[in-house]
């Protein structure tokens, strides 16, 4: 079992992921209302694709070392989805979000659905981490 400091770090990571997700939601709704243009939107979104995946992957792997199997299992579907999403991008496209194809309504809706799903997922994980943090703090207090 890991200590409270570890769970604090996980909490921070979860907060960062939430920030990425909310930023994506804002950008996508901006482009739907025509506040920004396609290239600007895709630049912003593509910027955060790789950092998000890498950060999430790294912190999830840490669960492997601390032995929290349940939490690892919770994070695994998202890792798989990230890998699938990234390799689906064919070589001819300009990144995961392609400015030439982003204005297609069907694509836009699909991106929004994906981002909302991730938002829900990260929110749940956030609360799970808070709970785990509290449990580990209580455990520490009990031992002391």
């Amino acid at each position, binding site marked *: 079992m890991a200590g409270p400091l570890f769970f604090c770090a996980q909490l921070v990571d979860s907060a960062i992921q939430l920030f990425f997700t909310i930023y994506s939601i804002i950008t996508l709704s901006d*482009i*739907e209302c*025509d506040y920004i*243009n*396609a*290239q600007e939107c895709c630049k912003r979104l593509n910027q955060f694709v790789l950092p998000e995946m890498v950060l999430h992957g790294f912190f999830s792997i840490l669960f492997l070392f601390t032995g929290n199997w349940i939490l690892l299992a919770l994070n695994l579907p998202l890792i798989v989805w990230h890998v699938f999403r990234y390799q689906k991008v*064919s*070589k*001819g*496209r*300009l990144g995961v979000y*392609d*400015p*030439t194809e982003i*204005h*297609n*309504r*069907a694509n836009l809706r699909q991106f929004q659905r994906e981002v909302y799903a991730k938002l829900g997922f990260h929110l749940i994980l956030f609360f799970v981490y808070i709970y785990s943090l509290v449990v580990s703090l209580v455990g520490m207090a009990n031992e002391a």
Partner: protein
Amino acid sequence: MQAQQPGRYPPAAHGGAIGQPPPPGSTQTRQLYPQAGGHPPAPGQYSQNPHQPAVGMVTQGMANMQMANQQHANEAINILAERTVLPPQPSPFPKPPGNDFRAVTMANPDYVRSTLRVVPTTRQLLDTCRLPLGLLIQPFKQMPATEIPLIRHLVMVRCTGCRAYFNPFVSFLNSHQWQCNLCFRTNEVPDSFYQADPRAENHRTRPELKCCAVEYLAPREYTTRPPPPAAYVFVIEATAASQRVGLVETVSKILSKNLMSLPGDTRRQISIITYGRGVTFYAFKANAVQPQMYMVNDLEETGLPVPSADLGVNVEEFQDMLVEFFEQLPIVHQSTTESDNCLGSAIQAAFQLVSGLGGRVTVFQASMPNIGAGALKEADPATTKGPKLDASAGFYKEQSLEFNQNHAAVDVFGFGVKPLDLATTSGVCKFSSGQVYYYSDQDHPSMAQSGRFNRDLTHYLTRPIGFEAIMRLRCSYGVSIESFFGNFFHRGSDVLNMPNLNPDLTVGVQLTIEDTLPRKRPFISLQSAVLYTTHKGERRTRVTTIAIPTSANAMDVFDGADVEAVTLLVARMATSSAPTSLADAREGITTCMVDCLRSYQKSIAGQSPTMLLVPRSLSTLPLFFTGLLNLVSFSQSKSLLNDDRVYGLRLLDQLPVGQAMRFIYPCMYALHDLGEEHTTTRENVLHYSPTRLQASMVCLSPSGIYLLDAGITFYVWIGQSVANEVIIDLFDVESFAALPETQSYLPLLENPRSVAVNSFVKQLRRHSALHAPLFMVRADSQSSHRMLQRLVDDGDHGLQDYSYYNFLSRLHKASSGK
């Protein structure tokens, strides 16, 4: 009479099917435009309304469906029984109900088509009907000034809410207030509007309020920068591969001939770049006798060797030097043995020349780029399975976005000596509103020198052009845009960026209905506004407004479907999904048809195990979809080259509606009895309208000569037992046996038959975007399979996967399955 014809289908049960091919020798004329008295509607005549759908027609009961073979316009027909079905003529837009709109000249279906001429009022109804709602607009089609009046007085009345332009479908509350038909906002009529033309007795006769399409001279606020000179850059490949097709020689010859016909004012300029292992620039200086050649071998950062002012040659000033230069250029590159190709670097070099100015870049390519920026690798046949229609590098797409920002378009002419990887390199055209032209090896051994390239390039160089164009599509409340299909950059949710406008560019847009349309309006309005700069430097806006009546009745929606527009929109939708998965695209096409039939049967006709009921308005839809599935673009045949497939896909995005429909489903005509009875005179020009036949071998009689108009190619098929005098008249040889096996031209001889046939062919070619070469084949020659492949109705010709009847039985099984 009909039983004696070899291979004819037995006549349909009710007799008198439309378009039954006349036996050879008969003088039967089919009325091509029965509603207009046999004459094609003259421009401006669309105020008569021959195809007004019967709004609110009573739907028939089940019992009547069994006798659905009556020839009522809105009935269902059993397509399994009716063998010969041919497409209807393009019908004009029906007028929206109301007295105000009686005198309005509706938009001409030559340049704007809607898939549904009656729009469902709710989203649910649209989903039930399963037909795509959308438009196909050709924004820069050259129409006479009577069709699209030019308004010079610089008074543009626009809605304060949605910025829509004044159009014939606004409602006037009183003489000073009008209500916008797109956002329903009340606006003031500015006094300047009445002052601009005080002679008009009634403001309804003003062109803005009478014609659906008008062109305005845009005032100064609509210009972001002073009109630039027309700048043309030609990027020509000079390698061993291009020498094999005589590329440099032919391009130089055609350019030199058409130098003064390039559109533009006196400031127009051209630049030439050749590329091979390196990029070569040609600088012209006023006091020099000869142009200077600069070769740049640094391919990673291709910079300009001299300032771009020297590289852009003013056509007027340097005309003589240019003509001489074009004579010398082929000689300079005559014996080149380079096999490396640095296309990407050449494109970057061209970018440097047009950045800041805008203009047009034309690329001539004969081999795959293998060095420098954007180098591509030839696909390893061992690892790739299935067709590769997707781009393999994002470099060219990135370049197209940069060209977009600098108001320049790139067109590519590809020659298929070797594989070109057109899928990747054509990315530079697609998003910068350019076009791809491709001449494959099979067409002609020395393709660059063939008449086809000559005519295409001449048409390309001399056709009207618009620069820095932006198109915005506004929809009335309740209708929203799903996506656009075509060659342009989709910049904002309803804005398209088109650095170059050419008359053949066609925009496809798919629309959807958000929930319910407002009840108080019986029609929806769509307005497209294209702001562009003419080649003379004038800034203009072309505004086209369309109003489509609505109905809550599914039957009306089915009857108002425009079968050609539906086919082309579905084709474009399939084209956009084909690069990711060809199987999905084919699946999508078939599913669209099945869903539509199933919903029709469920909602109106009722299912039947023996009959396949379709609405009469959609009776040719399965035929066209068979054509789509058999196209080279979507074919599952294993022997097709990737470049041919990619070109097939691009053609669907680039061709205007008429030519694209003939590409999908060819028109066949009998030539041997083309005579006086098939002609009409329109404005002192003889116009031929022979009977159109099904594209099937069944309609080919051995004693006839037939012309197959397949959009991008014409085939003339000569039957084995044609009368000798016909052969002598048309081909100047004694008999069938003396004819060459194939020939690529139709001789023009001095007898009425030959004149008629040649005029007919010229008439068919009149409004084509691409020149269609003509191939004459004898019925017994080995190359006749090339024509027979395009006979869509039949299957089993190697390239054909589905025959028409095959497709029908699949549809029947699928739609009556559950």
